[in-house]
């Protein structure tokens, strides 16, 4: 834990890390032009995470530092993940038991209007779309088609 005198990271390592960071930046830009489908976000975040790790370990000396500092930082990042994940647990699953609609009122109204327009195109009064027709339509359905973006 205790070191004798300040630990000095060799300049060569700093330069190598910098080189790696630049290469990874190029990579992440390049990858953005490759259609990866659902992997787009994970790949981008993965590369960013790798870059951040390099910065933390070498530029910020965490690799050579007191483990307490590393623990501190790790706990911080864990709680960011907790915050994001558990919030998404709600927002991604609205409408699961039917007590709340997945779509907003505005979206439902927009959809109703579109349905109305379709209806006007084919003159028929047999169709009536009520808000109650929508609640169970899961947001997941629209998610699947969107994931490629």
């Amino acid at each position, binding site marked *: 834990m205790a070191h004798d005198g300040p630990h000095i990271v060799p300049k060569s390592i700093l330069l190598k890390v910098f080189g790696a960071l630049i290469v990874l930046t190029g990579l992440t830009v390049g990858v953005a032009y490759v259609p990866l489908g659902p992997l787009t976000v994970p790949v981008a975040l993965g590369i960013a995470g790798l870059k951040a790790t390099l910065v933390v370990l070498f530029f910020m000396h965490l690799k050579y530092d007191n483990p307490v500092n590393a623990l501190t930082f790790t706990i911080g990042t864990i709680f960011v993940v907790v915050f994001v994940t558990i*919030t998404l647990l709600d927002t991604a699953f609205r409408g699961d038991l039917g007590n709340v609609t997945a779509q907003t009122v505005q979206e439902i109204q927009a959809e109703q209007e579109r349905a109305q327009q379709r209806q006007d195109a084919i003159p028929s009064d047999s169709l009536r779309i009520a808000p109650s027709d929508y609640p169970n339509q899961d947001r997941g359905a629209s998610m699947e088609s969107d994931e490629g973006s």
Partner: protein
Amino acid sequence: MATETAPAPTEREEAEHDHHPEHLQHHFVSSKQQFDSAKLGMWVFLITEVLLFSGMFVAYAVFRQWNPDVFAAASGTLDQAMGAANTVVLLTSSLTVALAIHAIKQDRVQRCIYYLLGTLGLAGGFMVVKYFEYMAKFEHGVFPGAAFDPHGAHYEHLAEMTAAPQFFSIYFVMTGIHGVHVIIGMIVIGVLALMAWRGSFSSEWYTPVELTGLYWHLVDIVWIFLFPLLYLI
């Protein structure tokens, strides 16, 4: 852990300097204890920064998950070249800060000042690029919040999209708060360069440089995440 406050280092340090170390505050036993405390304090401060940004990342994640198409389309209107250039600028500034600390640890004060000034220049460059990016958006009515009224060929299609204002609100808030951090960093680095020039730092005491370095790297890390999230995907 239990031995962290063991008295051993003091005796050695006391032997090394027969005088009371200049920067040692009275309530610390040794310079090492003081340095370690400052550093742990900085790390704890850094995680508060991380959690401060986390709120905006959550907002981003939630709205992106609701409107993936809109976010992809809106992110397409950002200038990737400028974003990439800024990433490189910020990474380089991180390197120069690391080198400044490297230099001061070896008592190379002159070199440390150069590196600090280099960092300052790069940070300034970052802000200049940011300024042009913001201006290009404002010109076309791309504002955060209620003023959002995109026009012009590149942006027109945004007006049709329901969640485009959310994307740009999040974009401006995230990059704005990040920008504020850059400016604060610039001020502190400027002060450090001045202090270094006055000979305040040496390999014996360089805590402020080290701590500012940590802060600056964190600002860099935040940008490392902002860049792909906002510009690329």
